[in-house]
Structures are given as C-alpha cells and as structure tokens.
C-alpha cells in the first residue's frame, strides 16, 4: 500500500475533475478566496493530486459530506492522517475524533456543560469583562487588536468559566493553533506545531487534572459526570482538554474577525449601533463571511459516493467550509458583509452530530463583546493593514491595528 500524507494513496473515479493546487500553501492560507472559487467552479467534488485527497466546496455537497457521519467518519482523523493506518500525534479527542455510539456518550456530557442555561449563568461575568476591556482600550490612541483585544477576552473569561486554577494565556491560545495546524499536511506549519506540542500539550494535560479545577466550573461538571458513572475519570480529563483545544483559539478568531468585519464595513457598524437586536445575527454573518475553521477532513469508512461519483473506502475528503460559506448558489451575494442576512445553515460551526458543541458559549462571548462595543464606542477605525495568520485549519488574523473612538 502506498501512503501519502498519512493516508492511503487514492485512485480517483476518472470522471472526478482534477484540481492541481495546494490548498495549504502559505499564499492560499493568507488569501483563500481564489482557491475557494476554483474549487466550487471545478465541480461538486474534485481530486487534489498533491495530497491525493478529494475536496468539496460547494455548499450542498460540503454540508452533506460533513454531516454524513455514517459514510464519512471522524474517528479516522479530521485531517490528513488516517488514524486507522497512522498513529496520531496525541491520543485522539474522544468527542471530535470519534463516531457513535462512543460519541453520543461524550457529546451528551459536553452538551450539558455548555448548554444555553449554563451560558446564561456566565453572561454577567462575560459582560463585565467586556466592558472593562473596552474601557481600557478606549484610553489608548491605538492598539493591536489581536494581542490586546481578541486574545485577551477569551483568556480572561473562559479559563474562569472552566474553573482553571492555572492560567497561561500564551499556552492556551497556542494549544488550539497547534491542534489545528496538526490536521494539515506535513508542511512548515505542522512541523512547527509538532515541535511545540510536547511543552504546550504537557502543560494543558496537567492543567486539566481535577485538583487543578475549582468547584462550580464547567470542568468540574465534566468530572461529576464521571462520578455518576457516565464516563471514566480519564475520559473526563480528556473532555476538559477538549474545552481548551476548541474553546480558546476559535473564539479569539471569532472576536478578531468580528472587529475586522465591522472596522472594514462602517455602514454595517452604524446599522449595528442603531439596532442592537442585530447583535446575534451580526455574529452569524461574521462567521459565514470569515469561516474561522476553513477546512476539516472526513474519511470514507465504506465504498460510497459523492454527487454520483464513486468514492472508495479510505479516501480522505477535505470539507472546505470557507468555500461553502461563500457559495453564490447558496447565498446570492456572498461577498457582501450584511449583518441582517441571518445566514442560518452556514457551516462555520459544522453541521450534524459533530456541530460545534460550544457554539452557545461562543455566541455568548461575542454578544457580550459586541454589546459593550455598541454601548461605548462610536467608531472602530483601522490604523494600518490587517494581516492574516496562515494555519492549516483556522482562518485567523495575525495583526490588526485599530483605534476605538468613544461615543
């Protein structure tokens, strides 16, 4: 058997169009739109020879493949490596990289810890942290919005919500970036992530131990599920780790992207100030427009089909969520950022049984941030160009100089 990038080399159905590009090149990760367009235009499913993978980027096919957990499984890894054939770099996530029935059990525990009711109990803490942060930044003539705003907010509120006694902001942000770079091919980003993984991963695992968590936090809720016999205590530690891989870097990205969208589209910022009921729809549009997770993969677990083409067992399929969220056949005018679009069905949080279990808490954090901004800020002005940070799965800002002008 010939292996490419940790999975079996694929001989694709001859009728599947070939797209000879590198979706993980630095150029594409900086500016993915040309790749997204080429992918959608090439066909409902394409073959990418460089990595011997299939890829989908039209809305309908992406949604179907991404949510069809029976044919296209997560347990063989959501990146290039096929966990059936290659040893994963870390023990696989027991919620992200697992199928039913195991997934059903862990998902239930996490859904309870991250439920709308729990998020409501956290909103006062989110609101006061957001107000303090905006007040602080209003005093500065300009600031770097990734380091000084987007990274600060989640690392202030989320470890507290989880109940962590140990907080290392840098490790918390970087752990997510490492996990997400690890799903890509063997490129410089993945190699750099692997080089830092022992240090950061070791710190994370230690910080997830029960005696490093306070009573009343989300982490303790997960350990209580272990006390009740729903999961084992080792599994509880693994699920607390999932809070940190999936809940910090992603919301940092969401906040940065929201600030980017609103600073680049002053008319939409004015519309938001005029109508606070658009706060939640605004965040949905930010998610659609920027797709914080641009690509995750699935693995065909049986011989199956995509859009009428045969797909053999073992094939890796890149689900390019960023392309689907910009599909003109679905959205009409996808290139326009419109806060009243209400883009229900966008794929930024995925779809189906693996749809982001923390999406309520992400919405809660963003609601607090946007509410504090519209209460206190008249204008959000860029003071220099925004730069994106290439990552094998996350589309995130690296630097964004901004100025806030008080009301």
């Amino acid at each position, binding site marked *: 058997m010939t292996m490419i990038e940790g999975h079996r080399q694929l001989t694709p159905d001859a009728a599947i169009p070939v797209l000879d590009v590198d979706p993980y090149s630095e150029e594409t990760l900086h500016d993915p739109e040309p790749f997204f367009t080429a992918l959608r235009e090439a066909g409902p499913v394409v073959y990418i020879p460089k990595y011997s993978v299939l890829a989908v980027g039209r809305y309908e096919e992406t949604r179907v493949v991404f949510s069809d957990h029976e044919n296209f499984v997560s347990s063989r890894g959501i990146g290039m490596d096929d966990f059936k054939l290659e040893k994963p770099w870390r023990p696989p996530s027991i919620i992200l990289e697992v199928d039913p029935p195991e997934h*059903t059990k862990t*998902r*239930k525990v996490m*859904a*309870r810890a991250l*439920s*709308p*009711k*729990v998020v409501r109990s956290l909103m006062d803490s989110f609101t006061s942290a957001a107000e303090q942060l905006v007040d602080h930044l209003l005093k500065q003539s300009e600031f770097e919005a990734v380091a000084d705003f987007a990274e600060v907010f989640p690392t202030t509120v989320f470890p507290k919500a989880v109940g962590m006694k140990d907080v290392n902001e840098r490790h918390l942000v970087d752990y997510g970036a490492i996990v997400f770079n690890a799903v890509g091919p063997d490129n410089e980003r993945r190699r750099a992530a692997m080089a830092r993984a022992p240090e950061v991963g070791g710190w994370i695992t230690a910080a997830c131990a029960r005696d490093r968590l306070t009573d009343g936090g989300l982490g303790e809720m997960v350990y209580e599920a272990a006390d009740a016999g729903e999961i084992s205590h080792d599994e509880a530690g693994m699920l607390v780790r999932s809070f940190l891989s999936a809940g910090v870097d992603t919301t940092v990205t969401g906040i940065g992207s929201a600030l980017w969208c609103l600073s680049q589209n002053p008319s939409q910022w004015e519309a938001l100030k005029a109508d606070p009921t658009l706060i*939640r729809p605004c965040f*949905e549009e930010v998610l659609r427009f920027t797709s914080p997770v641009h690509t995750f993969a699935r693995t065909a677990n049986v011989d199956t089909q995509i859009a009428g083409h045969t797909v053999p067992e073992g094939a890796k399929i890149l689900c390019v969520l960023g392309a689907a969220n910009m599909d003109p056949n679905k959205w009409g005018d996808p290139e326009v950022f419109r806060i009243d679009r209400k883009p*229900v*069905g*966008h794929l930024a*949080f*995925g*779809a*189906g*049984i693996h*749809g*982001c*279990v923390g*999406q*309520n808490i992400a*919405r809660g954090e963003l609601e607090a941030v946007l509410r504090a901004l519209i209460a206190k800020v008249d204008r959000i002005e860029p003071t220099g160009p925004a730069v994106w940070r290439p990552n094998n799965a996350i589309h995130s800002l690296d630097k964004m100089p901004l100025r806030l002008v008080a009301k």
Partner: protein
Amino acid sequence: MQVTFIQPDGTETTVNANSGDSVMQTALNAGVDGIVAECGGSMACATCHVYVADEWVSKAGNRSESEEDMLDCAMSEMRDTSRLSCQIKLSDDLDGLRVHIAPEQT
C-alpha cells in the same frame, strides 16, 4: 402540504411545506418570525422551540433523549408538548400540522 405556525400573540401563518423538510426549515423558508434556529439543526441551541398543538402531539412523534436535554435548557418553559422544530421531519401524515412558537428563544 401545509403547516400552521401560531405566534405567542395568537396570529396564525399557514405556509406550504415539503415532505422531508423539518418544521424548522419550513419556517425559515417561509420567513416565519420567532424560529431563530441559530445552530441550523445540530440540536445545539434550543432556539427553534415550539409547542405542538394537542391534537398533533402523537403524530409528531417522540422526543429523543438529547432533544429533551436541550429543551430543558430552552428560554421558554418546557412543557409536555415541547419540541425542537428542527427535529420534527414532515411526512404526509403531518399535512395540516399546527405548532405554537415559544415566546422566547434566545
């Protein structure tokens, strides 16, 4: 086939529906207010909460355990007739279905 949505103030909207679609999707397609459906049908948000009209409850089917867990966290109170409308899939025997939209979703 048709589905009738009843707003908390009693206003009724009857819309055309397709067999196979969810009640949530039917509401969104027709632009019915009050079904927010933030998560798009992943059973992760409880913002498409409806109360099924009494005469339709048995035909609409049973709630799954995870649907019940999510309804338990909904903004409006959970009742015996509560459903997440994303989890009610329309079929011919639901032609004429009537659902009351829960007053608060987010």
